[in-house]
């Protein structure tokens, strides 16, 4: 990549159970333990044995970032996305709110879209009839409402894309935004993910046995790569990155968090519609071929930020793909931030950037016992050499797979 084509991360904006803005996420990752709270089960959606907690934004005060009048008609997913966009711009030292700018591209991923408003609208249609349903609910039901809200908030008239590809979506958002900036079509890309979690969505995920459940007296917890893992910690929030051309960022003296070397994706056709497949061999081949297309080999990667989340089948596939890709070589240190951040909401993406920015990492929460089938031990909290090049891996239920290479600038 030439200096002009090189794309860097200059800002990280986030809102999650850990709090708002980069320092909150850094602190959470250093600490390691997730900030989970009880989910509202009074709605009656949950089975008695269902998961009880989630990593929720809850009643965090977002007013400093989004005035109540502006937030009034927004779904939670839209609010989170706008807060993440504004904190990303602040982090990057950019102010783009005055005039519309066709040089700003927005790419936002979401697995489920605005769930709360969709549910409320459907309830109104089914209970009271379509003639009395609220139009403002419908406006926010579309999956691209958060990306559109970000465009409105930042006056961004460049391309505006919403990617729906489950757990693999956030990495694709980064790849698309980076490609736009590298091609010179835009000077700034705001890329990442947003998600909101409702009690109904939580109950549905539990019904699919996707969530970690309590075991006797022990509280439920996600256990990435652990032998006893039984599901993920569901989360909500948003994380957006500010991407710029490296030369332009350096010219304005911006702090650079990471360089985006490239991203690519593949598909595991053996996956069922709502689970993970057993296509580790083919996916490992795609991973290695993708590295080669970017002039790299597995040996050039000195850190892996894994999307392992505690999912039984998902972590298995993730571990076997990595092991096959590395072959006889020893795997580099593996970070599994979803143990802390939970699944969905993009904090995982922020964690991947912070893996290069020198953030200290606590031990992988929930990991105690190596799974003999996987033979992968995530980071144990011991001091790590600063990473030079990170492979970020995201395998989605349903078959999509996505990878990203971030480098130290």
């Amino acid at each position, binding site marked *: 990549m030439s200096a002009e084509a090189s794309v860097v991360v200059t800002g990280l904006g986030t809102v999650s159970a850990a709090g708002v803005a980069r320092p909150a996420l850094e602190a959470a990752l250093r600490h390691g333990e997730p900030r989970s709270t009880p989910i509202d089960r009074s709605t009656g959606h949950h089975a008695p044995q269902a998961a009880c907690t989630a990593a929720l934004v809850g009643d965090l005060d977002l007013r400093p970032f989004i005035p109540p009048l502006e937030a009034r008609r927004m779904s939670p997913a839209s609010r989170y996305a706008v807060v993440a966009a504004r904190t990303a711009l602040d982090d990057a030292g950019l102010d783009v709110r005055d005039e519309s700018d066709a040089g700003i591209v927005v790419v936002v991923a979401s697995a489920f879209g605005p769930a709360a408003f969709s549910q409320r609208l*459907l309830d109104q249609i089914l209970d009271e009839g379509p*003639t009395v349903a609220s139009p403002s609910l*419908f406006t926010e039901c579309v999956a691209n409402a958060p990306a559109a809200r970000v465009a409105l908030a930042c006056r961004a008239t460049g*391309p505006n*894309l919403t990617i729906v590809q489950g757990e693999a979506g956030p990495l694709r958002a980064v790849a698309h935004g980076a490609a736009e900036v590298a091609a010179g079509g835009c000077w700034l890309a705001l890329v990442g993910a947003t998600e909101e979690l409702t009690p109904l969505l939580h109950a549905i995920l539990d019904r699919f046995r996707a969530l970690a459940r309590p075991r006797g007296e022990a509280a439920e917890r996600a256990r990435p790569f652990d032998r006893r893992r039984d599901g993920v910690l569901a989360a909500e929030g948003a994380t957006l990155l500010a991407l710029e051309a490296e030369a332009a960022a350096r010219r304005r003296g911006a702090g650079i968090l990471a360089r985006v070397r490239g991203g690519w994706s593949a598909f595991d056709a053996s996956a069922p519609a709502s689970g993970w497949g057993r296509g580790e061999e083919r996916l490992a081949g795609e991973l290695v071929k993708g590295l080669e297309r970017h002039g790299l080999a597995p040996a050039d990667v000195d850190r892996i930020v894994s999307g392992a989340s505690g999912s039984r089948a998902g972590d298995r596939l993730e571990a076997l793909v990595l092991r096959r890709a590395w072959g006889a070589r020893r795997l580099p240190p593996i970070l599994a931030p979803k143990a802390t951040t939970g699944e969905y909401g993009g904090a995982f993406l922020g964690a991947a950037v912070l893996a290069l920015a020198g953030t200290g990492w606590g031990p992988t929460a929930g990991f105690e016992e190596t799974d003999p089938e996987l033979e992968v031990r995530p980071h144990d909290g011991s001091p790590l050499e600063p990473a030079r090049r990170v492979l970020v891996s995201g395998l989605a239920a349903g078959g999509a797979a996505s990878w990203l290479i971030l480098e130290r600038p």
Partner: protein
Amino acid sequence: MVSGVGVVSAWGWGVAPFRSAVAQGGSAIGPFTRFEHANYPTHVAAQVPNRAIRPRRSRCARGLTHADRFAVAAADEALAAAGLPAVDTDRRTGVFFGGSTGGMFECEEFYRRWRRRCLDRAPRHLLAAQPVSRPAEAVARSLRVSGPVETVSSACASAALAIGVALEALRAGEVQLALAGGSDSLCRITFGGFNTLRAIDERPCRPFRADRAGMSLGEGSAVLVLESLESARGRGARPLVELCGAGASADAHHMTAPDPGGNGASLAIRRALRDAAREPGDVDLINAHGTGTPLNDIAEYRALERVFGDRAREIPLAVTKGSVGHLLGGAGAIEAAATVHALLEQRLQPVPGQGPVEPRAPVQLPREAVPAELEVALSLNLGFGGCNAALVFARWSEP
């Protein structure tokens, strides 16, 4: 290059009935039965006739939603039309889809049963239908695709944006073959939602007519097989038309109302033309978004005027929504398919409906399928939230 097209529409399963109906200016919008709609204010849509399909892999047939089935059938037809009986494992293939509702209809069925507390009788496969990414994944699973599979969900611009993403993936060498398109099905939430916005006409939609009163929803899928010229030639295939460029933009104006000045949409058109290395003067046909809502059609005309000047009154339009309704996330795909066919046939597509044209949007609406020399055509899609996408296609003739 576009080397194959597949379509499922209210005209039936396959390109042939769609192509024939569009060429004759027919409209498939009328009464529909997908769900009970007696208590809705309007009662017309363009529903795909029921038909069982058999995916290539039998285990992929379980739990397919309507949108999945449309997508799988359209992809199969597009591949066959391209002379590819199967996805060639030596050729890295990707699936790039747009969608906005996906399996929402099936998800609504689950939710209705869930609300009645019949949890045990609420099948999981209905719920698993929810992700909008499902149709693209169903196609990839059925064809054993191992390359990128991506779904764009940017409202009515989704499929056009997805086709643009596929074009970029081909240019960047990420894939050698792309199945690009979109699929959506009718569901209560969009039918109810657009009714709450009073955006649905009681009669079949009449885009750009003075008496238009809103859109008509539709369902279906369209898939284009995209590959480089070298790839098509290498396997002895004849390209149908060239996909020369794609452009996108955002209005950043309002969540539902279009920018009345057409600024955002004109930016997308300019970007697509620049990407295609074409000038506004090169464009011979525009497949307009043409929803038929009072505000949108005028704003769209303003955008055309910004780019094409006085020629905005003269360039003939195609308005596919008048024939098959608004496919929402799939609209960009079926309108791209109609554009491909117009270039292939070198014939204008009569726009369904009669009556005077809206005086504030004095566009050229063909009344008959007259022959025309069409070298370059633009397909435009403008979505909720101000998402805009434009595609530029060109006639292909062997040098």
